[in-house]
């Protein structure tokens, strides 16, 4: 469970930084519970962020999935699941 929690934190931090860069706000302004739509994230941003996450974590991510998740932590959890299934 510790490993999983650490992985979750790592993925969340990565996504927060990348999303913040795309939508041009401070990372501290994006909490795990922040709704992605409230950040102003557009579909093209989602594709680029997902591509960066793919490269970082070595998993395949369908960027349309990002819009199935309301909050950052939900999407981060989905990526953690992909990482675990791959290992």
């Amino acid at each position, binding site marked *: 469970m510790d490993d999983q929690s650490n992985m979750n934190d790592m993925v969340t931090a990565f996504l927060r930084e990348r999303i913040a860069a795309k939508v041009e706000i401070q990372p501290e302004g994006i909490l795990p519970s922040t709704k992605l739509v409230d950040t102003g994230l557009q579909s*093209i941003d989602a*594709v680029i962020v997902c*591509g960066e996450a*793919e490269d970082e974590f070595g998993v395949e991510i369908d*960027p349309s999935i990002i819009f*199935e998740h309301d909050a950052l932590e939900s999407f981060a959890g989905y990526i953690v699941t992909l990482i675990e299934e791959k*290992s």
Partner: protein
Amino acid sequence: MTMGHATAPRHPAPKPPTAQPAGGGSLSAALERVEAQSGSNHPLTREYLAWREALPLETLNDVLSGLAERCVPEDVVTEEDLAACLERLDAADRPDLVAEFCDPLIGRAICRLAGLDLDAALPLGELTGALAALERDRMTSRALRDAEAALAEADRLAARDAPRPAALDGFPAEVPYGTSLALLIAACHAAAQPLAAVIWGLAISGQEIWTAASDEDWATQRFAPLYDRVMSLFRRDPADLEDLPALARIGDDGPLGPHVRALIRQAIPALTNRFPRLYIHRSQVRFLDRRAVIAPFCIPGDAHSRSTVTSSYVIEIRDYALARQIATDNEHFENSRIVEFFKRMQSETQINLESSIQLAENALFFMVGPRHQRSRKVIMDILGQNRLRAWQPVIDQGIDDALETLAAAQSPDIVRDFTEPVLYNICKPLLGLNPADDARFDSVALTLTTIQMPIRSVKALKALELAVHDMMEMIETQPSDDRPGIPRSVLSQLLESDLEGFDRRDLIAFVLVLYSGCINIAHTLANTICWISLLPREMTEGIEDPRWARERIELIMSTCASLNYVRRAAQTDLRIGGLDFTPNHEARIEIAAVNRGVAAGNMTFGHGLRRCVGAALARLVVRAAIPKLYSRFPDLEILPQPLIYEDLVTSTSLETLKCWLHTQTTDRT
């Protein structure tokens, strides 16, 4: 299941071949490799797998016979069991019918059979799920962690109960109590797989058959034939299993067979009564090849077919009236802005997407305004129902040629040897596609079907660009598409029409998009043949007569269509159907849901200004193909196999559908 429609006396048929089960390599050896590589340690799992592979079939059958004697089949589940599992399914968000209904119910049945307390049912259900993940040969760290935890829970349950339940007496004394419990659970669960298989079979058969399962006489009149039809698709010949471990050979025909069938007879009417509008995501169903019995291990679905706000970006539409309203409301909704998306991606990433942009600009469903109106009028003049009559001889010949391909195949496959040849033989000449390298063209064409996806990964974008560029080049440089004896192709007619706002490359792109739509004809035809294999015999009488398909074409298109979604982007804030849309929202119309119980007027081809221009062609091809197929091969049989769908979000498309033609010239292997 054979159709049995031949009127002439049938010759004795040789034993049909079965699609061979996947390799049954040792799970113990696989675990050993994983542990050696990762340094991990899973002692309980190791012990379980070792006993799983060492126990003889006779021992397991003796244990199961002991259980069968302890419990009358009709008592294997109670109304309280069913109510509890239905509540669980009702409460689940995005339910998997196996995890939220089948496995919990089987867990309860196992408790009754083995004389365990019912509060063990929940952890037993989780144990079966964890063990099933191992059976899928997926030794991921998560699967092993879950299995080890579940086996520890089995040990805890074992330690709690004293003395050891009589149900486990058949196991050798040296098998640890917790391991015995796990083995018993795994064996019972394997025997009970037909529950998920029958639910799947009912769910894909359409609303009429689903509703009929809630009738009082279903259990006595209709259950047995349905069970036989579904299990003919999913039960392997025991002779093919003799070299596998005992647990892999547990099927529905063992000592617990009567209990499994009693379980299903009770569960199905309860399920269909409680959830009359339940539907499943066909292409997301995953099948486990359990050797003796193939069965779904994951059936994603929706119990209520209610439209819901999925997130701040997506609203899923499952109501027919609302779907129709959204599909025809061009003031407040439009199709996705794919062109804009591609252009921005090209600008931001510097990835060349010129071919994809040209394809999207010339896709009818993304066009707006006068360009859309002009091109739609021209294409409907060519592909409208009356005009297509001139193509009937090409359609008939294309199907006949595909039947020859199927007949000549060593290991006939409906997809590879029939539905794909039907597509190539008819739609390429009709559209004017005559590439010099057909094989290369066909290998990349499937990528085109993703054009409707609103967003996609960078990797998928690059793949699409390569495919489109390649296909455009092939058509630009193709030999003349004029073929003697057939009408002039769509491309030829478009080029001669001097359509304002379209140059030659635009028209080639336009036709390639039409072809991407035609690919759905092949997918729909394969889905239809799979669906037919599950229908009651009385519903398929006369199938070789063209009237059968003609009278049911709307039902077929409603039930078997491959397209999964129609997507519409909201343009403004508005409230309809009790749902609040913003310009962020995509209305995702789930065709399988909105089509439930709808034949004529179904949403498969959309409605109004955006209605699919290929609808008439799709109907003509399917109407002609079905009677020809079953006239030629009246005893066509779908072989036992796990159904594997292409990994496409946009459509439900079988990768393969192996069959046996029951002809004297067909090889047995």
